[in-house]
């Protein structure tokens, strides 16, 4: 029993550390790019803001694929593929890999907004998401 508890503890701490490492590295980079305030409210607003799809003209936002409840699975708007929850509380594997964070910010900002998100926008969104 004690061993089990120990293993669970070690694993939890390990995954927390991974998350902390990856996100703190991201926040360090944002600071280097001149970001001084990480605004979770601004992050939430941008997350929910509607943009027009370049081709169809239909409104779209982050929730189009990730859903409005971040603790639940999302669903890719085109392919229907399941997307695991964005909320850290529901999905501790999130935000543990710097490369992944960057990749998805790049792709998904380009699709949703039509351009890359700048450092401030990324910092706001990331700080909003890790508190969910």
């Amino acid at each position: 029993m004690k061993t089990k508890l120990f293993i669970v503890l070690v694993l939890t701490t390990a995954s927390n550390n991974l998350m902390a490492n990856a996100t703190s590295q991201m926040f360090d980079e944002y600071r280097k790019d001149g970001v001084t305030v990480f605004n979770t409210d601004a992050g939430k607003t941008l997350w929910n803001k509607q943009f027009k799809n370049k081709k169809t003209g239909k409104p779209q936002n982050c929730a189009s694929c990730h859903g409005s409840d971040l603790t639940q699975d999302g669903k890719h708007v085109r392919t229907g593929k399941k997307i695991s929850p964005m909320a850290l509380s529901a999905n501790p594997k999130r935000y543990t890999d710097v490369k992944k964070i960057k990749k998805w910010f790049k792709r998904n900002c380009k699709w949703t907004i039509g351009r890359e998100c700048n450092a401030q926008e990324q910092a706001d969104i990331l700080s909003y998401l890790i508190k969910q």
Partner: protein
Amino acid sequence: MKKIIVPIALLTILFTTTIVIGDDDSYGKKEHSEKGYFKRFFGTKLDVAPVKNALYKEECGSCHFAYQPGLLPERSWKKMMANLENHFDENAELDTDTLKTLTTYLTRNSADKSNYKRSRKIMNSLSKNQVPLRITETPYFIRKHDEIPKRVVKNNPKLGSFSKCAACHTKADKGSYDEDEINIPGIGRWED
């Protein structure tokens, strides 16, 4: 006693193997249970080589079904991977290293280099100058799905498109597209 058991066991194995060889070719028409039993022991005769590349599964499979490389020719994969910024109107950009690795994986395992049944059939259905970007555009795919009424896929609220292989082909992720394994959302089994 041991001396008797060993030959009996060997004979049993030989006997079962013979049946399997006979069973394998007549796919689709035999009893499902029997087939499933033999498949489990001797491996499924696959239609397309299954995806074993973890990077491919991760990078491509997080947005859509990880289509087997053997479903399109090398020329198609090359064209597709050269334009990931506009990937069917989505952004699917990859970093240079990942792009290179995955392009190599796709082109090395493409339909024109595969001996698997469906890969060969897809290739045979294409003319040399055709560079399909969608598997659903290949003549073989069209021929295999042309009897399906609109209500079943296109107008099926649970589907809407032929692109979601695994939505109906329950073993698509293992490279198996056998008719027996079809289970259409909201409709069920399908035989033509």
